[in-house]
């Protein structure tokens, strides 16, 4: 096959596969998480008291195990994720909630890394441009 022909075949197949992916993903999340998955996600968003900074999901202490039972119970009772988090925040304090998305400190946490990547990219861009200028001066 000629190179052009190859390109055409690759292009068509690739485009078709891309469409399948985009359409498939756009249809979205069809499966709701199981209770155990929700318990795991919740437990990993709450810091365990007295556990060297581990979350309730990771700690193997009996305290953490008891709190996991409580979360399991609340999820089985039909509580939403936010309700469970709020209950723990009320009992433990906000500093035990590892998911900072509700905290007023959340914005800075996300903004600074984004600024770092923008800043870094600008430096690379500057390097590139000054390199270009130099080539113009001395061809």
């Amino acid at each position, binding site marked *: 096959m000629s190179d052009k022909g190859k390109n055409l075949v690759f292009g068509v197949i690739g485009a078709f596969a891309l469409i399948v992916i985009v359409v498939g993903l756009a249809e979205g999340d069809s499966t709701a998480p199981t209770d155990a998955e929700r*318990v795991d996600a919740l437990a990993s968003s709450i810091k365990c008291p007295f556990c060297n900074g581990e979350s309730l999901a990771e700690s*193997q202490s009996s305290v953490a195990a008891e709190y996991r039972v409580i979360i399991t119970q609340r999820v089985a009772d039909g509580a939403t994720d936010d309700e469970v988090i709020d209950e723990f925040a009320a009992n433990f304090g906000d*500093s035990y909630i590892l998911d900072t998305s509700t905290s007023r400190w959340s914005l800075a946490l996300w903004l600074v890394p984004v600024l770092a990547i923008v800043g870094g990219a600008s430096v690379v861009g500057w390097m590139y441009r000054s390199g270009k200028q130099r080539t113009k001066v001395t061809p």
Partner: protein
Amino acid sequence: MIALAGYLAIFIALGAAIGIVIQGIRYSRTGDASKLRLPTSVLLGAAITSFVLLEIGILNSEFSIAYIANNTSLTTPLLFLFAGAWAALEGSIVLWGLVLAGFIWLVWRQVGDNDGLGVLALAVMGAVAVFWFGLMATAANPFAVCTQAGSIGCVDSSWWPFVESVMPVDGRGPNPLLQNNFMMAVHPPLLYIGYVGFTVPFGFAVAALIRGDFGHTWLDRTHRWSLIAWVFLTAGILIGAWWSYEVLGWGGYWAWDPVENASFLPWLTATAFIHSAIVQRRRGMLQAWNFLLVIATFALTIFGTFLTRSGVIASVHAFSQSVVGPVLLGLLAVIVIGPLGLFIWRSAEIAQVPRLDSLSSREGYILANNLLLSVFAFTVLFGTMYPLLVEAASGDEVAVGRPFFDKASIPIALLLLLVLGIGAVSPWRVATPKLLWERLRLATVVGLIAGALAVVSGIDSTSVVLTIVLTFFVVTAIVVRFVSVVRSRPGSKIKASGKVLRNEPGYWGGQMAHVGIALMALAIATTGGLATRSLVALNQGETAIVAGYCVRYVEPVSRVEPNRTVSGVKVEVMDGSCTDVIDTLEPRLNTYPGSSQAIGTPAVSTGFVNDVYLAIAGGSGERIELNVFVFPLQWLLWAGGAVVVFGGLFAMIPKPSRQHRGSYSSGSTEPAVESEASDE
């Protein structure tokens, strides 16, 4: 007796380290390395002696030494006794010192005559050794004698070795978690070799800065050392992750715990450094950047030690519970401020005119990934320190954990993979779109088809699908490149493959590591995004179905082992129809003397498609609660990791000399693309 001898060895090592610094500075002009023979040898000898004495004391249960009384016991099995030497702070510093002394001695053997750079680098490394042995001689004396015994272990100890010592009846034994699996004996030494190994490029970098030797000599001299350190660091992290998965029972391998982050941070910057060093050696760019990266990597290894040793992580409120904390923090300050000051002072001379011909080139893509790796490191560091920063700034208490790190790292990691795939097959200077498309079209199509198949088979997580696309893209791109380079050679394809690999061990070792990284990324995505987690309650004899597997509670098991009491359950893992037994597992709870808390130990059945992971969640006897986790492709994480380590080792193979290469390329026409595949 052992205490006194050990203490003496530490002081001799300290003296030898000071000798290295003095002699190194004195002879840095003439570069007379023979003047360092005595102090480097004495340092190594004394470091070995102190380590051996500690081990002898441990094996003889010499509980009059406080460290031994508090970290080993009469019932500790031999392997964990031996590993007891690095089970806690003071002992691990002895191991650290030993590794450092070994590196210094090995570097000294390579320093030639009239080698001012090498001699000065040794002086810098000697200064680092002064710090560690000074720490052992003062704040963290591993041979401190016990002055007041508890019922087990030692309650109070004295720094001064001549006081009258007491001998506790039995020791406390190591932390139960540490004696639950043999990997714990391997994981710390590997990490230490990795951490300490970066002292070598750091030493050469600082020496080059002092001497004003800004070329790539220091990189040429250290590139194999950096690789060795990187390989050990990689292996150490992987084994730690494996231990966490196999032993801790929470069903994961990475928790974004500050201590884990502390090992990941220098890995990220070291990975960036290894790549940017190639760019400087090949293209002369990034001189200043390489100095910065190597200083950052070394500082982060100390920062990691500080985090693990100071008590900052146990509680974010108590800054430095141990005396070692402030000392380490002081060293950190010296390491960051000293070389950075030196760097800034020299920066006007270092800064050369940048010469990036095109953003689309090998160096351009490496630069992009350097940026991503650095931002990744910065993000992890920032997230880890954020609670401290916020508290210091406002008094508010916040916590940053898995939710943030997972969300932040996914986009960075996906971008890294994409750029890695393109950069791996790009030539230096300029990669035209036409050339890139030629080399990447098959990879692009294969990646997209794999992604489409994943979507069709019901995977609906965007990050998992993207990872599948990129994994297949990267692996195919590298394989296609290899095949096309081999094809362009005459003769037998098998022979040609061997020759291609042998000609460019650096490049192809790197590509193996890239393939390993892509496989690991796939496993991280599948085990994270497609796992099934279920909690089942079973009466004896009952079965439950989880994700197509049938688990049956057979019977409770309990037994007494020399160092622990085991109480577990026997569980059969069967296929979905509950007929064929795939595996019989025994998740259990171990109770160690000296600790009331039972340590859960999971049991894992590893399959080609899925791992079935069982951990006891509660209940006992007749009725138990069992966590049943199913992790798709978990084995690929460990296999991918092994490929990464193998690739790193392969990259260390010396390149055949020019002459040798010429001899077998003269008969045939050396393909023009060959030089483009090469990385150096």
